[in-house]
């Protein structure tokens, strides 16, 4: 199961759209795409990650997002997650992370108030 990652530059910062399964096999790829977005988007107000097409996420995917949040904090940027699929929602709830991340219903909602 391959992961597909589409990266897009928006006004407020990079938007990464993930499609597929984020597991121990694919999260290194997600991590490096996030790293690339941090490098390219230095000084941006936010990093957006669209999770609507993620059918599966395990603790390695969560770890990758937690790391991204920590990097964002250091850079004074916001990490904004968009449109969690039911599978991702389940994992976030099990990990009690639903309130830790900033989660938005759509890209336009996430772009507000930055």
């Amino acid at each position, binding site marked *: *199961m391959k992961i597909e990652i589409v990266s897009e530059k928006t006004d407020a910062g990079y938007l990464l759209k993930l499609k597929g399964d984020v597991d*121990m*096999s694919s999260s290194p790829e997600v991590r490096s795409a996030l790293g690339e977005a941090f490098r390219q988007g230095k000084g941006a107000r936010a990093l957006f990650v669209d999770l609507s097409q993620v059918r599966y996420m395990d603790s390695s995917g969560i*770890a990758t997002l937690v790391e991204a949040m920590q990097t964002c904090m250091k850079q004074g940027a916001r990490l904004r997650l968009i449109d969690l699929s039911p599978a991702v929602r389940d994992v976030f709830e*099990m*990990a009690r992370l639903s309130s830790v991340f900033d989660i938005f219903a759509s890209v336009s909602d996430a772009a507000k108030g930055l």
Partner: protein
Amino acid sequence: MREEARVTKEGKELQEETVSLAVPSHPKYLYVVRSAVYPVLSSAGFSRSETRKMVLAVDEACSNIIKHAYAGDTTKTIWLTLTLGGDRLRIELRDSGKKVDAGKIAPRDLKDIRPGGLGTHFMNSVFDSVQYDTSGGEGTLLTLTKKRS
């Protein structure tokens, strides 16, 4: 398949059904494990959400075997056995790597937001029992059980 049969109070035979799977200890096979385990559990009558959580827990157990028992060696083998009894599901995971230090395995405090340490928590939150057995010749036997409703 084990041909164990139990007899209920009503005298009905309850045949256990067993599915076994063995895959290389490479992360790319986690998807194969999930793909095989999901339909076994969902056709056993567990809800979609419960099935998803159990599949996640099994995936985490396999990831732990790759990371900890085999220290990243992707050429070893992970053995899984799913046994559907009349009232109970039992999932066994076996490896031939470094034996687990059962005392060291504890779910982390969820308030401590950091990467890692979630796998054990996921296993405990969906399964009724999570048991590590290192008494065998080599490796660890992890047994996960859940009551069928």
